[in-house]
């Protein structure tokens, strides 16, 4: 069946089987391979994308359920020319090694910081507990997200 939604600001119309998850739709139909698939049953957080501004696991949503919504993937959170402030913080704090989980951490952190730019370390840890990273030990990721708060404070004021 046909499903239409917006991805990274662009309207798309895709012909899909009902059983296709949004994660597979993004990767295989729309070639947005920045969204990674780890566990395929909602445990690892690697496939996190934003749907209508909220962080969700794209392996636990059908593409047909996304009909009419606004989807933002990790590609939609990047600049062509330069790293974004959040990405720069991840680099500065060595918040990744292999990088497989990173798209999920970036999308989750972006959603959190957009809504709660004043969140404390406990809240960051609580929110990031839904994402698994096997390399870093998490401390550097928490530090990167805490450091990135400063770049979201002005944005929240503008809204």
């Amino acid at each position, binding site marked *: 069946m046909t499903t239409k939604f917006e991805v990274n600001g662009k309207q798309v119309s895709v012909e899909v089987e009902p059983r296709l998850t949004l994660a597979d739709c993004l990767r295989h139909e729309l070639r947005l391979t920045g969204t990674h698939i780890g566990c395929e*049953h909602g445990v690892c957080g690697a496939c996190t994308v934003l749907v209508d501004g909220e962080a969700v696991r794209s392996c636990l949503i059908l593409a047909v359920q996304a009909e009419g919504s606004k989807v933002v993937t990790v590609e939609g959170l990047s600049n062509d020319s330069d790293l974004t402030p959040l990405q720069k913080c991840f680099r500065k704090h060595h918040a990744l090694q292999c990088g497989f989980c990173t798209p999920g951490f970036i999308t989750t952190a972006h959603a959190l910081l957009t809504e709660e730019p004043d969140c404390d370390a406990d809240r960051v840890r609580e929110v990031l*507990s839904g994402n698994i990273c096997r390399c870093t030990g998490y401390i550097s990721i928490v530090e990167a997200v805490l450091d990135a708060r400063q770049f979201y404070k002005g944005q929240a004021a503008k809204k």
Partner: protein
Amino acid sequence: MKLPPFEYACPATLGEAVALLAGHSGEAKPLAGGQSLMPMMAFRIAQPSLLVDLRKLPGLKEIKIGADGVRLGALVRWRDILDDKRLVAAHPLLRDAVSHVAHYQIRNRGTVGGSCAHADPASEMPGIAQTCEAEISVMGKGGARTIKAADFFKGALTTALEPDEIITEIHLPAWPAARRWGFQEFARRRGDFAMAGVALYYDVDGGNVKNAHIGVIGVGDCQRRLPKAEAALNGNAVDDALAVKVGEAAAAEVDPQDDIHASSAYRRALTGTLAERALKAAAARSTA
């Protein structure tokens, strides 16, 4: 794993949704947030031939707070409960319990109706429904009916729902402002399924406890209340010695399972400890 094939429908009214379920002789499932159903399908634990997406049904996303308590539309998400500041006074136990549900991303999708229909023994919402004597309203081809939580939850992943019925609302009775409460659960990693959890509340009459309600999750094959532990609490003034006694009564009353996560003996001891902590937290909260 990829999901097995199925058909998909997204009806605009409750009547259409019920008709779709009724027309598929038990092979169709309603889809709310999908945060439990989708993994079940990925593991082939569930293989419905038709998914009936409830997202377009009107009127099921509201939280209504009135003199008779809190009414949660079936499509109310965990996030909606945590964002609703009115619930701090209207049902603090519900809010605290929901803050333990899964992870951030899951809480943006998962719904109260879906959780009750799924009826995982470790889930917080069915535990709160049992502890608080909630009533669950459903709609099926035979019409609407309301089921008491104690009759609704039958066991692990088993409820009184007929295959053509959809949960529409969960009603939690009114919460007096002076009521005391505690919620404690333990999981190895934040957001994981509880190895055990205890919800409790009571009212105070002349310094003594009355109307004690104690419920347990993650222990045995169904959320349930613990009448013997409640009896140990009723009629007494809460102090540390009573908290220990109630904890011991709770531990003695449960029938925990052995599994890869914990032994039966460990879960029993954990239940006692959590009940004791929940009661101490309730008492401490009342003097604050």
